[in-house]
């Protein structure tokens, strides 16, 4: 099934264990540092854990396990494989 494009989906809207793909149009919104750590457009991204106070979040992208803040995550759009 083709991924459903939902303009409201960002990394911040993922649920624990859910997988998304970073959208190409996000490129300019991804901080360089994150890009360098493997958070690239098109990459598969999995939400592993959310901190007890709902922020930061713990993701796995391109083999990198990273914790980022929600404000950053909310800027990066993703495509969810439809479920």
């Amino acid at each position, binding site marked *: 099934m083709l991924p459903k494009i939902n303009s409201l989906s960002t990394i911040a809207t993922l649920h624990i264990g859910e997988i998304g793909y970073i959208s190409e149009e996000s490129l300019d919104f991804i901080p360089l540092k994150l890009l360098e750590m493997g958070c690239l457009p098109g990459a598969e991204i999995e939400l592993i854990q959310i901190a007890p106070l709902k*922020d930061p979040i713990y993701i796995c992208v391109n083999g990198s396990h990273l914790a980022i803040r929600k404000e*950053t995550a909310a800027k990066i759009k993703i495509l969810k494989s439809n479920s």
Partner: protein
Amino acid sequence: MSKNDIKVALIGNPNTGKTSLFNQLTGLNQKVGNYPGVTVDKKQGVSKLSATQNAIITDLPGTYSINPTSIDESIVLKTLLNKDISASPDVILVVADIENLKRNLLLFSQIKDLEIPTVLAINMVDQMTKKGITIDLSILKKELNTEVVLISARKNEGIQDVKEAIIRCHVAAKASPLCSIDSKIDADYFAKLKEITPNYSMYELWLMVTQNNFPDSISDKEKEKLLDFQRDFSKLKNYQHKETIYRYQEINKILKKTYLVDKNKATDLRSRLDKIFTHKIFGYAIFVFILLLIFQSIFDWASVPMDFIDATFADISGFAKKQLPAGVLSDLITEGIIPGIGGVIIFIPQIAILFMFIAILEETGYMSRVVFLMDRIMRRFGMNGKSVIPLISGTACAIPAIMATRTISSWKERLITILVTPFTTCSARLPIYAILIALIIPSKKVFGFLNLQGLVLLSLYALGFATAVLAAFILHKTLHINTKSFFVVEMPNYKLPSIKNVFFEVLEKTKSFVLEAGKIILALSIVLWFLASNGPSSFDKAEQNTIENVANQNLSVDELQQKIASAKLENSYIGILGKSIEPTIKPLGYDWKIGIALITSFAAREVFVGTLATIYSVEADDEDATTIKQKMASEINPDTGQKRFNFAVGMSLMVFYAFAMQCMATLAIVKRETKSWKWPLVQLFGMGLLAYISSLVTYQILS
């Protein structure tokens, strides 16, 4: 260092075992220095590559890219752009972790484009079978066009291969870029950039433009041209993004041919441990439990060596007194220098134990989980999840703690962390708390099982942390510094700590304390000794007057000596100083004697106890706590006829020491780390004012 030595720069992502490799290559042949003009420690070591060839290895701070986001990381770029013959590296050794090879190769590809001979060491290959990874080394070498070595630094495997590769690479001395970023992004743009100077590679010039980092060897004219390229900021940013994506595309192409992971073999130890350590209840409970365990161990384990150090220095001082001819120089040595050094050494056990725990927590990967758990809470107070590490370290000593803030990339968050760290209860406050608690708090049980004295000490720790957090909140609301707060933390794999790495880490942190704090405490001890052993004419007469005054009291020789010492101190410069500040501190419940101790404890807080011991004519080299305590307990306030150290005065003093910035060494470090006198002065007066007002209120309410 000889001319023929190969200069090697060691670079790698954090958590790749870079430190392990450095320790294996250099062993105990390492020293920590400073980079000129910057405050970050420079770790260097000598490695014997072959019978005839040595290498000087510089361990650069761990970084994910040469585009820096923190002070630590900016060192890497600075070192690499430096073309000064004596400092620029001949060979760069890049360490990569086999499991995260893709991301590690990004840094490698950037380094390669600097056109400096490069060796790639792929670490942790002992994990390959377990993780289901296979790698084709010969193709990888050809594709990356560089020396590639497989190693396992912890198991000391492949180290010889690294050494040989460094020699081969140095001899061949050829270097070529890996990614031609120019043609893929904007050939004309980069051609114009390259035209500016032939002395640097295109990528080096590009880095100068994007990072605004110009080496001294760039002329003003060249710099001006480079600055022109900075004008179009959004283009710059866009090209940087494109560059990174292009690099990853190239890396993916190469890895497709050479690197294979069987995902079924991946273990889920990480996810199982993460579920526990980041759990909303267990996560915090485990963290609090670990903290309590650490504090408990510090108290239990450090007391024996501390008593030993205390006794040893008293013995050395006594021995020196007997051996040296009487005179000013011998007094300086036995009463100034030896106790001064002892005052530094005594803290080593507590500091070493605390840093051992912190090193273990970092080595295992647990510390990143704490940062993850605490970031949201700390952010409310203008700090960062990473601020937790300095705040915990501050319970040993604020000096290494403040240096640990360097990993925080947001300047505002880092500054606030630096400013509030001295509120946490450091080990120098303990002797003061210990003696005052023993004096004013009865040793009895509350609720049947809690020791009241212990409870008071615990509340003082809590007071320290609470004040730090509250001060941070106020600073957060009042400091208007516009820096972008950006936060990304890698959550590394869990691993067992390496004893060697923990040992070297503890050694380094302890050294930084001894050197930084030590020289200031020692210097101040000597100054204070001078002020206490000299004075105007009344000082010289003190001895004679005392002998006459007590002539018919039938005192023993010891008692007479004590009376004389006490009278001398009263008439010394420092005694005069103490009396002159008495009116200011009287509302706090203190007299001039306590005033002297307040002044002397500027060297380091614990000097307070030693000074009172001298003032209350306890023999200086017999710091038996019960005697000092008895003398303090029997001290009478002549105005009231009551005990001097009553409940109100004791509480007022403890509150004073909880808040006051009574530490010259910390002020010096804050000056160094913030590059300005403004912030240490803010701390000195802000904390001093808070201490004065709180003690005043405490005393006035309780008395």
